[in-house]
């Protein structure tokens, strides 16, 4: 599962991102990270991550595969952080494996590599999934496709897009770079209800 925090938190945030999207990178570093360290850690917010790789980004589909494979072995948080922390580097080189392997113990990475073995497929990105077709069945693609289908229902028209839930109410989706103080004010207004 690609989640942060406790499911029992009063506020849930579903977020749709593309690992190669610069705005998503800025959002993770400047907004999501402080929120995870503060409001998620204190049990106020539960974050659910969904992948929405955009066709314009050559490696975002592959990055989503690595993140999902890492989630299978319980290393999603460290890999997501590694992907965003090094976004500029792997966007230029296409070498995601280097940063994913450095983010976890070697035995966990061996397990991730095994999951990823059938999924390595350089080539043009497939429309509309935003991921390159795999020569062999790639089980984790199903998670990404599910996320994309969920995103299309929102609808996600750009990344990052996020949706908040509180007391059974679903709030309209918001897109773009939102600073932590502004997002915090919104979450506080929900918590005060």
């Amino acid at each position, binding site marked *: 599962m690609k989640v942060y925090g406790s499911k029992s938190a009063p506020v849930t945030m579903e977020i749709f991102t593309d690992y190669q999207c610069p705005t998503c990178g800025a959002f993770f570093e400047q907004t999501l990270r402080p929120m995870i360290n503060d409001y998620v850690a204190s049990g106020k917010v539960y974050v659910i991550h969904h992948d929405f790789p955009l066709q314009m980004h050559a490696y975002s589909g592959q990055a989503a595969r690595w993140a999902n494979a890492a989630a299978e072995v319980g290393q999603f948080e460290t890999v997501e952080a590694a992907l965003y922390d090094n976004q500029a580097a792997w966007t230029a080189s296409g070498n995601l494996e280097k940063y994913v392997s450095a983010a976890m113990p070697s035995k966990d990475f061996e397990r991730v590599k095994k999951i990823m073995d059938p999924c390595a497929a350089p080539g043009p990105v497939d429309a509309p999934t935003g991921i390159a077709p795999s020569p062999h069945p790639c089980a984790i693609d199903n998670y990404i496709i599910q996320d994309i289908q969920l995103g299309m229902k929102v609808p996600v*028209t*750009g990344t990052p897009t996020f949706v908040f839930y509180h007391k059974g109410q679903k709030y309209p989706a*918001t897109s773009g770079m939102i600073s932590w103080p*502004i*997002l915090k004010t*919104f979450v506080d*207004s929900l918590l005060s*209800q």
Partner: protein
Amino acid sequence: MAEAKKSSAMGLLLELARVALVVTFLVAAYAKMKPQTAMPWSLASIKTSLSMFAMGVDSYQLLSPGAVNFVAHWLPPFELFLALWLLSGKFLKLSSLVTTLLLGGFIAVQIRSFSLHQEISCGCFGPGERIGPVSLLRDALFVALAIAVFVGALRSGPKRADTDAVGAATVA
């Protein structure tokens, strides 16, 4: 006579433009402040709605958090005030000038956002409407209406001497 009819028709059109702007601002203020879910109206729900609008303002990435909060919490009530001011017709030159400047500012930031390929919501009438050709054309129309009302207000000052002479000749 024809001049008088033309003037009367133009006056009616400008009144309609003014009413259109009144309705626009009333709808805009309401959409930003109303509960964004099935929750009932309350101070808490308005606070949440304005915080949601603040996220929309922040997504333009133009202002500091302090400025974003100020704009987000004061713009909707100001839109309501502007609607009532336009409706009253008092100091129309000033109210229509303020309207023109405000709407001109809105469309300028939208054009900037669109040119930067920011995939964000306009925020004009609440969340959910992406900035694009439709929102830009619509808001350009509003600016045009505001300019028309302002120009009409400027021209409706003291009558010119030649117009009075034509009117007097027609009566005679």
